[in-house]
């Protein structure tokens, strides 16, 4: 076994589902490397193949072709018993929690430890510790049916941690939760990553989830990874239209553009400018400077500042009232300062 920083390597993974007349290719020739300690996000619309892809990581889904390597070990070469041992090191949480309703909260967290070498009292103590970590120690003797969605997911996280995994796979774990609960679950995942050093692979269809906790992201469409990289990079300079769609939806620019575009006075002739500030540039007082130096009046129609992987990113849609020529000069000036700026309705100048 070679020592490597890569905890998961997927090489040339394809998954075909045979149907009556032809095979559906759910995943096509995907290569993916995930480093130890990372929080790696995979985003895509439903049907993009992301759920199938993460199930390949612990071989819940056998790939049609390709290699699955976990900690330098090719999982497909393992005997069933060894594979089960490897799976214990890959925890998984699900959209619908998948808790056992016949067991108490404590019983659910103890489940992965049943049949192991651990004594009954140690098992109980460990499960209680994990419940404390997720903040649910007081509900140890409740049954899952009496818990809220967020609480169920916390139990599922505790359960997934019981075998001291190295990797935690999150399959749309926040998709069935409300925004506030989503936030708290993401925070918990972040703590799990930082305190326990567990690598997290997270799939979602929401860019907010990615921007909040992930360091790296892959965008999936139609069984392929179409774009990947550091989250801040992908967020600010999306190369693919789909990625841009996800980003714009996440920061509400899309809604704003539609709303503004529908208003007549902005659709005929006024100068609408879309501005994107990254990192330090979001802290400079650019707008007032432009307004002063180019003698432009600036109406801010939409503005949003977000934190992406720890970096500030600002978005703004503004109306420049003044000469188109000076407005263009102002835009050029801002670009020099590292701001992404473009005229939205420039075709109507």
């Amino acid at each position, binding site marked *: 076994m070679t020592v490597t920083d890569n905890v998961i390597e997927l090489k040339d993974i394809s998954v075909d589902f045979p149907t009556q007349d032809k095979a559906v290719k759910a995943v096509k020739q995907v290569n993916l490397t995930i480093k130890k300690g990372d929080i790696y996000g995979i985003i895509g619309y439903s049907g993009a193949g992301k759920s199938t892809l993460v199930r390949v990581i*612990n071989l819940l889904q056998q790939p049609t072709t390709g290699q699955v390597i976990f900690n330098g070990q090719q999982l497909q070469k393992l005997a069933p018993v060894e594979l*089960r041992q490897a*799976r214990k090191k890959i925890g*998984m949480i699900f959209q619908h929690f*998948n808790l*056992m*309703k016949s067991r108490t909260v404590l019983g659910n967290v103890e489940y992965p430890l049943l049949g192991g070498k651990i004594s009954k009292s140690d098992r109980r103590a460990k499960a209680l510790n994990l419940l404390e970590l997720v903040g649910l120690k007081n509900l140890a003797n409740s049954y899952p049916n009496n818990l809220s969605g967020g609480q169920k997911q916390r139990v599922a996280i505790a*359960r997934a941690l*019981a075998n001291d995994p190295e990797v935690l796979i999150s399959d749309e774990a926040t998709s069935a939760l409300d925004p506030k609960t989503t936030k708290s679950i993401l925070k918990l995942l972040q703590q799990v990553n930082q305190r326990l050093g567990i690598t997290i692979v997270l799939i979602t269809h929401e860019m907010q989830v990615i921007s909040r906790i992930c360091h790296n992201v892959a965008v999936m469409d139609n069984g392929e990874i179409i774009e990947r990289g550091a989250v801040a990079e992908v967020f600010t300079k999306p190369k693919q239209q789909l990625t841009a769609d996800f980003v714009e939806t996440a920061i509400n620019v899309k809604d704003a553009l539609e709303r503004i575009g529908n208003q007549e006075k902005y659709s005929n002739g006024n100068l609408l400018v879309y501005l994107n500030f990254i990192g330090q540039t979001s802290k400079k007082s650019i707008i007032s400077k432009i307004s002063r130096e180019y003698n432009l009046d600036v109406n801010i129609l939409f503005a949003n500042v977000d934190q992406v992987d720890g970096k500030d990113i600002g978005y703004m849609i503004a109306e420049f009232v003044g000469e188109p020529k000076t407005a263009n000069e102002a835009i050029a000036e801002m670009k020099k300062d590292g701001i992404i700026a473009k005229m939205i309705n420039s075709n109507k100048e």
Partner: protein
Amino acid sequence: MNNIIPNVLQMKGQFVQATWETLYMTFASAIVAAFLGLLLGVALIITQPGGILEDGVLYSILDKITNLLRSIPFIILLAVISPLTQFLVGTTVGTTASLVPLVVGIFPFYARQVQNALLDVDRGVIEAAQSMGSSPLEIIFRVYLKEGLPDIIRVSTLTIISLIGLTTMAGAIGSGGLGDVAISIGYARFENDVTIFSMIIILILVFVIQFVGDYVAKKFEH
């Protein structure tokens, strides 16, 4: 009283004995059938398409055997199976002899019921157990049978009630029991009160079993 149920009063002892015979036939065959039925039901659920030990060939064989056995009318099964009964029990008539056809008649039905009950166990929970490195045997005992327990209790109740129905037919091979009393005494001698009284006892048995079954199933539901 003497006017309403004249014949019943004369054969109190016979009724007590017949009730015991019915209970004996029902529960003795239920225990054996429960074992066989659970085995077959679990085998069906794990080998079926998408099961944890999916095996198309084995599944289709088990599936066909189950259907075949369920298709034989019980009154004919009683006769057809007599060589097996002779081999296992040493006789083909009597209460104990009737256990063989009762078991064969009911366990495929029970297996189907178990399969359906286990089908309701959330597929996601099974997947979660697999992701935690559980072996197939662990999944069967710690997930399927535990998660499915309330439903298994419910279908067991249903099966026991069906079984009581079958015991009444076993009278045809001299099994005794309440069905035998109702037909060979009540019906054959035109003693209607005997027939009706047999039926009432059976109804009471059914109600009690249903009540207990529901109660126990609820106990295990959370």
